[in-house]
């Protein structure tokens, strides 16, 4: 993975709930720090778009889906444990 790889995220949230707001904030902060200028975030509110949640099989909110680069990965939760998130995204080297 090069330093120029572009990341594409989809974040499923449930309206303005506490957990969802936290997840949005945490993801934004993480991208700012580790992926400046090479990320795309698509936020889907399952309250507004329940059929989408059903079709995509998203039952726990918030859920982050990393669409690119492959493989597709899912992280459930507020993304408050930054280390875990970075590990899953293959960005742990960035911390060091």
């Amino acid at each position, binding site marked *: 993975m090069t330093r120029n790889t572009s990341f594409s995220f989809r974040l499923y949230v*449930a309206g303005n709930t506490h957990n969802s707001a936290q997840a949005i904030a945490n993801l934004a902060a993480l991208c700012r720090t580790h992926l400046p200028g090479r990320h795309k975030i698509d936020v889907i509110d399952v309250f507004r778009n329940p059929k989408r949640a059903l079709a995509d099989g998203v039952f*726990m909110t918030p859920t982050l889906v990393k669409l690119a680069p492959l493989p597709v990965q899912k992280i459930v939760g*507020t993304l408050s444990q930054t280390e875990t998130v970075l590990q899953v995204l293959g960005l742990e080297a960035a911390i060091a």
Partner: protein
Amino acid sequence: MKSSSPLRTKAARKASTGIAGLDEITGGGLPRGRTTLLVGGPGSGKTILALQFLAHGARTRKESAIFVAFEETSKRILANAASFGWNLTDLQRKKKLYFMDAQPLPDLVRSGDFDLGGMLAALDAQIKSMGARRIVFDALDVVLALLPDALAKQREMYRLHEWLLKRELTGIITLKSGGDETHSVNPQPFGFMQFMVDCAVILNHSVALGVSQRSMRVQKYRGTSFDENESPFLIGNRGFEVAIAHTLSRVEFKVNDERVSSGVARLDTMLGGGYYRGASVLITGFSGTAKTTLSGAFAEAACRRGERTLFVCFDSNSTEVIRNLASVGIRLDRHLKNGRLRMISARVITGSAETYLVRIKALAEEHRARCVVIDPVSAWSKSGNDLTAQSVADRLIDWSKGDGTTLVCTSLLDEMSGQVENGSPLQISSLADTWIHLNYLMQAGERNRGLSIVKSRGTAHSNQVRELILSDTGVTLADTYTAGGEVLMGTLRWEKERAERVAHETAETVATLNRVRLDAEEAELEVRLKSLQVELVAKQVEKALLVRTTQSDKGELSRGHTRIGELRGADTVKPGRK
């Protein structure tokens, strides 16, 4: 449940489960518009019960349903439930039943807190599109386990419960209880759930002496009375079957005056016409006292009347039973061939007493049997079934009566235990309508079979012990003789009979001889009477002749005097004046 009138108002607030026994325990079903918690160990039948509840609602109550599967995939659930014949795929096609696969991926990564908001939003959309009224969350514990702390778990349970109530869905949430802890649910966090919901049902699966026993218990049910006892259940080939002992209100049976033959003419006479239709008959006796023969005779008589009959034998193979009965003139093979009789060797059924009952019920219903023979029912109390066998036997009798089936059970008495007439090992003797006891009588180097009617409700019956005689032409009873306070049977009876016959013949001969002698005497007297009469007549004639002769002599004499006087010219004198 097809509710009878007193239940109708209650039933409106209850959602029928389609499981007759469970509906009966809860007085109509699970609380409508409320949530029921279903708790049980692994393999206790939670998923099946929940699915049956949905399938029943969708099929018969026009209540479409959603199944949220957290643990098993819907594909596997459908495959497992295929054998129950609930037509789930058909319901799915008609959009009456919807499966939501919500299994967390095994490699799911969790970072921080989350909630079920996404799922509930998705469900909202699905409920709206199909108008669902019933919902099941199967194995909620799987999702709860992912939540970081107890507080989060409580919050999500609360969220789910509120969501269900707001939408007035009749819901079941199933939770696993740990391992073999059968009576209590894990204290945390499920205890919280138990307090929250309106109804909680606990499924229990235990093993006693190697025999699997399943039971269920309604732990709570807000706002209604319910049967609080553990009820045995079984997962049969049509799903759940919950056994009810009818302890609360014994079912009213249709009482029948019709009599059915016992298959032994003289036994019918003893019973004043036979068994009652729909009665439960118990035949007790030691091994070899012809219990099977007597029940076989009943089965044959039933088949001859054209009644469909089920014969369940526990001790021996059905072909053996047929062969053995043929030796005493009871021919069951042709009834087996024409389909009236169905014979089941119950040794192939393994499991709890409950299993036997359910299988026998299912077989009897399948065969549309009007008469059922179980030989012997005491086989139930074997191996680990001691506790349940009694209530199973109770329910067997309840069922047969409710169904109007005439039931003949045999019960083996253990010769060693010395129980003779105090009771059969299973105390069904008090419930049975007619109790026939067979016994051996050892006498003069013989062992003969004695039959007595211990009780027979509602019928006048003979109180005499009879001898049961088996021959290759059939079964019959013989009167017994009592001599010196002892009942005579077998050869002794025969000798007594012969002695009486000889005595009778002798008496008859003597009487005949006497009659002949008297006849002769009578004839002789009559002859003598006749000759005397003739003699009498002769004497009378002789006497009359004598009288006449005397008179004429006298006249002649007087006339002679007058003439002499005239001739002599004598004075006329009166003849008396001499």
